[in-house]
């Protein structure tokens, strides 16, 4: 078969890649050693970062894409897919990560936004993107821009699952509500949430988002992960929750098993036993306005 007969970077390939991650745990890692621990524990992919979100909070200043050397080090260390984060709207950081060979790009509110008006035009890329969302409007605007996966934002680096729950309940609830509307009402609702009407109708027909929907931002224990799965997540991202815990290897394995058996409390009890301390948590209500990450990128 000749190369010109092959098609690369299509919407189907992007969404297909995202779909392969279902039922899995994607873990934040900052070096090759952590990446190997994540892979060994059963992660479906790793997110390569300069710092995990809780350290980004502590460091302050401008948070940017990781050093390419670090991303390459992680890519070479593992056989599972490697993802990377870029600043909202920073399409050149995205071009760099695509060249380096990352398998999916997270246009992430955890980093300092580069553009407060526009997100990246993700359809221009061969590599698939995941984007954060707090509600159906944000999710569908990102899908319309070309995101192949949505993750509810939660509040990254807090070890507090409350915002992740709020965002997942919001999106799932909005989709359930759509099913009671007729086409005209749906078009009206689409205007209200500033989303394309055809995507709103697609959600209503399928009873779910047009792309897979993971949970992120505050998952710190196996029970947290299973909670998000029971609320309807297709899988979970765990950021600081693993490598800021007392025993990252056990925590990573426990969270993988809890996602696999999310509806079996006996298994969750077993894998939660003897894990040591989870990461220290933050009260999201005590964050200053400028410390809240989820409001970035509407």
């Amino acid at each position: 078969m000749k190369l010109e007969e092959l098609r690369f970077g299509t919407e189907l390939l992007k969404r297909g890649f995202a779909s392969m991650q279902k039922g899995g745990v994607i873990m934040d890692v900052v070096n090759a050693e952590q990446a190997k621990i994540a892979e060994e524990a059963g992660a479906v992919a790793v997110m390569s970062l300069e710092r995990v979100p809780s350290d980004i909070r502590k460091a302050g200043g401008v948070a940017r894409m990781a050093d390419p050397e670090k991303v390459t080090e992680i890519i070479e260390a593992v056989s599972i897919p490697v993802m990377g984060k870029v600043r909202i709207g920073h399409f050149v950081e995205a071009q760099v990560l695509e060249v380096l060979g990352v398998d999916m790009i997270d246009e992430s509110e955890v980093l300092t936004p580069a553009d407060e008006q526009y997100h990246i035009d993700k359809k221009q890329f061969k590599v698939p993107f995941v984007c954060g969302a707090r509600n159906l409007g944000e999710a569908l605007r990102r899908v319309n821009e070309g995101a192949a996966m949505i993750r509810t934002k939660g509040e990254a680096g807090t070890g507090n699952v409350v915002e992740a729950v709020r965002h997942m309940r919001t999106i799932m609830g909005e989709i359930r509500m759509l099913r009671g509307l007729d086409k005209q009402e749906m078009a009206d609702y689409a205007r209200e949430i500033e989303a394309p009407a055809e995507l709103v109708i697609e959600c209503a027909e399928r009873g779910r988002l047009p792309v897979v929907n993971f949970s992120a931002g505050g998952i710190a224990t196996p029970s947290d992960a299973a909670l998000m799965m029971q609320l309807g997540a297709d899988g979970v991202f765990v950021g600081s929750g693993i490598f800021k815990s007392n025993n990252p290897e056990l925590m990573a394995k426990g969270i993988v098993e809890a996602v696999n058996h999310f509806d079996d409390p006996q298994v969750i009890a077993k894998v939660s036993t003897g894990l040591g301390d989870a990461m220290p948590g933050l009260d999201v209500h005590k964050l200053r306005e400028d410390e809240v990450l989820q409001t970035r990128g509407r």
Partner: protein
Amino acid sequence: MDANIGVLALQGNVSEHIDAFLLALERTRHGSASEVFEVRSPADLADCTVLAIPGGESTTISRLIDKNGLYEPIRQFRGGIFATCAGMVLMATEVADPRIHPLGLMDMTVDRNAFGRQKESFEADLPIASLEGGPFHAIFIRAPVVTRAGSRVTTLARLEQGIVAVEQGKNIALSFHPELGDDTRFHEMFLKKNGI
């Protein structure tokens, strides 16, 4: 024949396979009372006539097969197995990667991520001699290939990089994802091969 069609539901593209089997059953109008369900435990597997091992992350699925006590039960399983992408990796006798614990059910060597990373993933119209109705539109996502097929393994399709579709006895293994899209000819071929 009515049958119990199990889809291994540890991680990956599970619901798409379930939908594809339901569509295949509807189209062939065979086994209309067949059931398609998720397999998570040895007890679920015991109820199956045939099994599908879906795409996903092969290292993750391999680890969860071991962890859930499914390794020996799948090896002893009497029905046919339909394996796609990560499933193909797991069916092999040999995988050049210590992170995988292959089931050894098909006499072949499989190379993971043989085409490269996600940006090298592709779609192609694949001519398949044993399939009526023209080429099959195949979706390859970080796909594996068969680098050695034993004497009992029949090649159904190949690309420059290696063999991408094989059968052995009641089993079929594919590098690509017939469950993405609505062409159910491979699902139908598998059901027919297993008398469903």
